[in-house]
């Protein structure tokens, strides 16, 4: 039996499932923004995916793992001594994670960001920033993990990317959102917070569902090969998702956006420790993440007055941070977990990621803002990104033509 073929099969499905998650990001965003920005949300997510692929193929993946794809096909098929072109589908799988970075940020900056400056940020983040931290944690680069292990007794454990992917994306968004400023009409001069209502709850729910389902590829296939496939990872992902959605149901008083995003908060938080925590630990992690998201959303928007449209800072940032640390608690064998982690490594590893994310977010978006500007003109924002950038609306027949 050809193990490599089976592993290619395994990762192809993982990659396809996480690719599908990008459709989920697109619909979650399209449903949450106002109708005049739906098309832009959809186009931005898919083109960000495209630019991410190019950036990660030519630069990012090599930076993180030292592998490149410039040899002839005959060699590529056996790269790293693995048959059936395993390394290529491995690239595909990891790319779908890398491309989640702009997809996450997208939900924060939507409805007023300019198209090409955002594309430039995407390229920089996926070519350089994300792979830097990814390489540190998953590529063993620069001796960072070795140092943590030597210092605290265990490396930083982030099985499927609570921190590497989600906290990174969520906190990169902080700089972007702050530098961009709030949408027109979001905060009144007298300090009141004005609501901007979502356009389409079914699209939002569809996006959330696609993300939830794809997430089982994100987590289970993070094992990298069939040998490592783990029922524990599947079950923990399930329980954290459920914990998140039920907690958000209660904390969010039946708000459909909170319920559907609460499931995602649970899934964000379980990535790191899904292979080591006990299922009941996973449920608790999810409950905290879901309730924390509802709470964090309101703090960010209403107290801090940061107009993070989809709430990606609490959702991916907050829950990712919590997940990184929680793996250092519920992963301990004293909590029924599999052990092999220490709280300190989890704390330090997580905070390192958050620090990189926050600083690079301000640097990258700040530089682009200075050089070319990142925000639509007031008039473009008023007419909506759909007409301003794409020259078409979400329902063109109905909105645009003579009847």
């Amino acid at each position, binding site marked *: 039996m050809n193990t490599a073929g089976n592993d290619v099969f395994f990762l192809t499905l993982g990659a396809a499932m996480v690719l599908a998650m990008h459709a989920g990001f697109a619909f979650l965003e399209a449903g949450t923004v106002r109708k005049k920005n739906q098309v832009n949300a959809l186009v931005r997510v898919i083109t960000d995916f495209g630019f991410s692929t190019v950036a990660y193929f030519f630069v990012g993946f090599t930076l993180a793992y030292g592998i490149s794809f410039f040899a002839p096909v005959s060699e590529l098929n056996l790269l790293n001594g693995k048959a059936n072109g395993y390394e290529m589908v491995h690239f595909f799988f990891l790319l779908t994670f890398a491309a989640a970075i702009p997809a996450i940020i997208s939900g924060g900056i939507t409805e007023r960001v300019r198209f090409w400056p955002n594309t430039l940020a995407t390229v920089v983040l996926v070519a350089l920033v994300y792979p830097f931290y990814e390489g540190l944690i998953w590529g063993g680069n620069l001796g960072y993990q070795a140092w943590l292990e030597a210092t605290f007794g265990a490396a930083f454990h982030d099985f499927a990317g609570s921190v590497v992917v989600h906290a990174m994306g969520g906190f990169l968004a902080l700089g972007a959102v702050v530098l961009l400023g709030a949408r027109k009409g979001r905060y009144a001069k007298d300090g*009141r*917070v*004005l*609501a*901007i*209502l979502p356009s389409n709850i079914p699209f939002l729910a569809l996006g959330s569902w696609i993300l939830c389902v794809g997430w089982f590829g994100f987590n289970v296939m993070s094992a990298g090969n069939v040998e490592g496939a783990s029922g524990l990872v599947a079950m923990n992902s399930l329980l954290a998702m459920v914990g998140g959605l039920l907690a958000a149901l209660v904390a969010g008083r039946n*708000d459909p*956006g*909170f319920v559907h995003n609460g499931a995602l908060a649970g899934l964000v938080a379980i990535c790191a420790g899904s292979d080591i925590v006990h299922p009941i630990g996973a449920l608790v992690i999810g409950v905290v993440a879901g309730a924390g998201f509802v709470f964090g*959303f*309101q703090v960010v*928007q*209403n107290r801090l007055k940061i107009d993070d449209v989809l709430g990606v800072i609490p959702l991916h940032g907050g829950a990712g941070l919590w997940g990184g640390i929680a793996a250092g608690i519920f992963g301990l064998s004293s909590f029924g977990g599999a052990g092999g982690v220490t709280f300190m490594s989890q704390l330090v590893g997580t905070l390192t990621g958050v620090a990189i994310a926050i600083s690079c977010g301000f640097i990258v978006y700040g530089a682009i803002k200075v050089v070319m500007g990142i925000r639509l003109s007031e008039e473009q924002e008023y007419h909506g990104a759909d007409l301003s950038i794409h020259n078409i609306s979400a329902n063109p027949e109905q909105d645009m033509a003579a009847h």
Partner: protein
Amino acid sequence: MKKITAVIKPFKLDDVKDALLEAGITGMTVAEVRGHGRQKGHTELYRGAEYNVDFVPKTEVTVVVNDELAEVAIEAIVSSANSGKIGDGKIFVSDIERVVRIRTGEENTDALS
């Protein structure tokens, strides 16, 4: 002829239509509008942030009738659209000089019958 325009609560439309039909008035035109009156807009909360509902959905029913039917039509509307609550709406009556039925070219009373 008189044009009677009533701004009513949307869920009263069926009752008003039935009342008019009973009064022998079959021609009517209906539009979806939004209104502001004593029943003012109000402020709602979404996730802790405010939004204004400045206008309330209303339905506008227009009937054009011969002068002698005007009183009957108004009464039919008043009695059927009345819920006794604020926002029940208003009736506006104005004069119509001429009516033409497009299909036949008939005018005025003939056009209305």
